[in-house]
């Protein structure tokens, strides 16, 4: 039996999709006068789409990817940038 941990890497297109959605959602939040950082942190912690404006379909968009995918992409980006 192979007892080695297998690491599943998300496909590049999935990562690009997460980034595209984050950009669009942040843009909609900005335009409506929200702080995107606060709203995304709230959404990631609570899972409640009420944090995301319905403007420009952002609330529908954010639900196209799982929260763990978003969090993974954010942490991956940070780790890569910091050389961790």
């Amino acid at each position, binding site marked *: 039996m192979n007892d080695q941990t297998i690491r599943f890497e998300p496909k590049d297109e999935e990562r690009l999709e997460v980034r595209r959605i984050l950009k669009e959602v942040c843009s909609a939040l900005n335009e*409506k*006068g*929200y*702080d995107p950082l*606060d*709203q995304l*942190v*709230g959404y990631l*912690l*609570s*899972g*409640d*789409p*009420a*944090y995301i*404006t*319905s*403007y420009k379909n952002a*609330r*529908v968009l954010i*639900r196209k990817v799982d929260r763990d995918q978003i969090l993974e992409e954010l942490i991956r980006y940070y780790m890569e940038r910091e050389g961790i």
Partner: protein
Amino acid sequence: MEQLHIVGGHRLSGKVKISGAKNAVLKLMAASLLVENECIIRNVPLIKDVLTMIEVLRGLGVEISWEDDAVLRIKPKKELYFSAPDELVREMRASVQVMGPLLTKVGKVKLFQPGGCVIGQRPIDLHLKGFQALGAEVIEEHGYVYAQAPKLKGVDIHLDFPSVGATENIMAAAILAEGTTVIKNAAKEPEIIEEQNFYNRLGARIRGAGTDTIRIEGVSSLRKTPIDYTVIPDRIEVGTYMLAAAITGGDVTLVDVIPEHVEALTAKLKEAGAQIIIEEDTIRVIARPKLSAIDVMVLPYPGFPTDIQPQMTAVMTLADGTSLVTENVFGGRFRYVDELVRMGANIRVEGRSAVVKGVNRLTGAAVIAPDLRAGAALVLSGLAAEGKTIIEGVQHINRGYEKIEEKLTELGAEIARVKE
């Protein structure tokens, strides 16, 4: 006096657009007392409670007007009164939500002990304990509550129960307090996120709504820029129309919803045998003529909502088998059972639970709605009953459902509002 006349037996089908959330709008209207400039609130349902809150705010010194369908423009005057008219406070429990904002803005508040649905004891002790913890002096006498504090101080508050109203009032009172306030065991309802969003747009620093810990960092002042806010859809109205589809064996698509807000109900309806299709911001309910009996346990959000319990019980009266509905939030929430029994339901209430034995048919009868959500349950039963149901106590239903007879008629129901 108004009545709703319903001829049952029509299978509902089609689309229904959901209105803005009553329980969010009322709190945002109260929150608007802290607006330094003016605000626009969109997606406001035209219901009695909103009209009452408009009068409460006018009584406090707020300029408020309908800009358009479902759009309110609100501008508080520089000097606000600290006490709302007694008869309005008596009429609507949500008026207690002006306390926190008034304490912050004016430094004092005096209110008649609030009224609202008679669905059990809902004391405001937790609100008042929160104000006291923040440093306010609170006096209750002669049927009034009086609180005052020239300056509030941030503090850690652990709520005995995750009360929505207390969470919101304490949040409002802490916005300009000195230091940081942390509310633990906070309520997690989506309407609290709405308030956090609204206050933060005004310049407050609040984090954590939607979780059980909310942190409010006091700020010295709020922004003077106007804001424009759109309210989330009403999850209780969503639940009511999902259950209207279920009780009539219908096929109804609800439009403009946040499906995550009704997950507990969705799970229960699937368990009962209904098909639920969720796509983006719509939910489609396809129900077979006879659903299976299920047990329902009412709990604070994200558990099964107390505000949908009566409607769910109504659906279970026609299910195949015996259901147990247990109410853990408000004690007086089975007051409608006698009315359902009058229509042929077989329900026995034992303490906090109702044992519902499914019957083959309900029959139309003259019934009286004892409160808002019980009224909705009677409407649903009337839709499924044989013959004509006449519902009195419509003023309760008017408090929370926008154009209910128009929306149901669009779906194929035979329902009319009759003025006696």
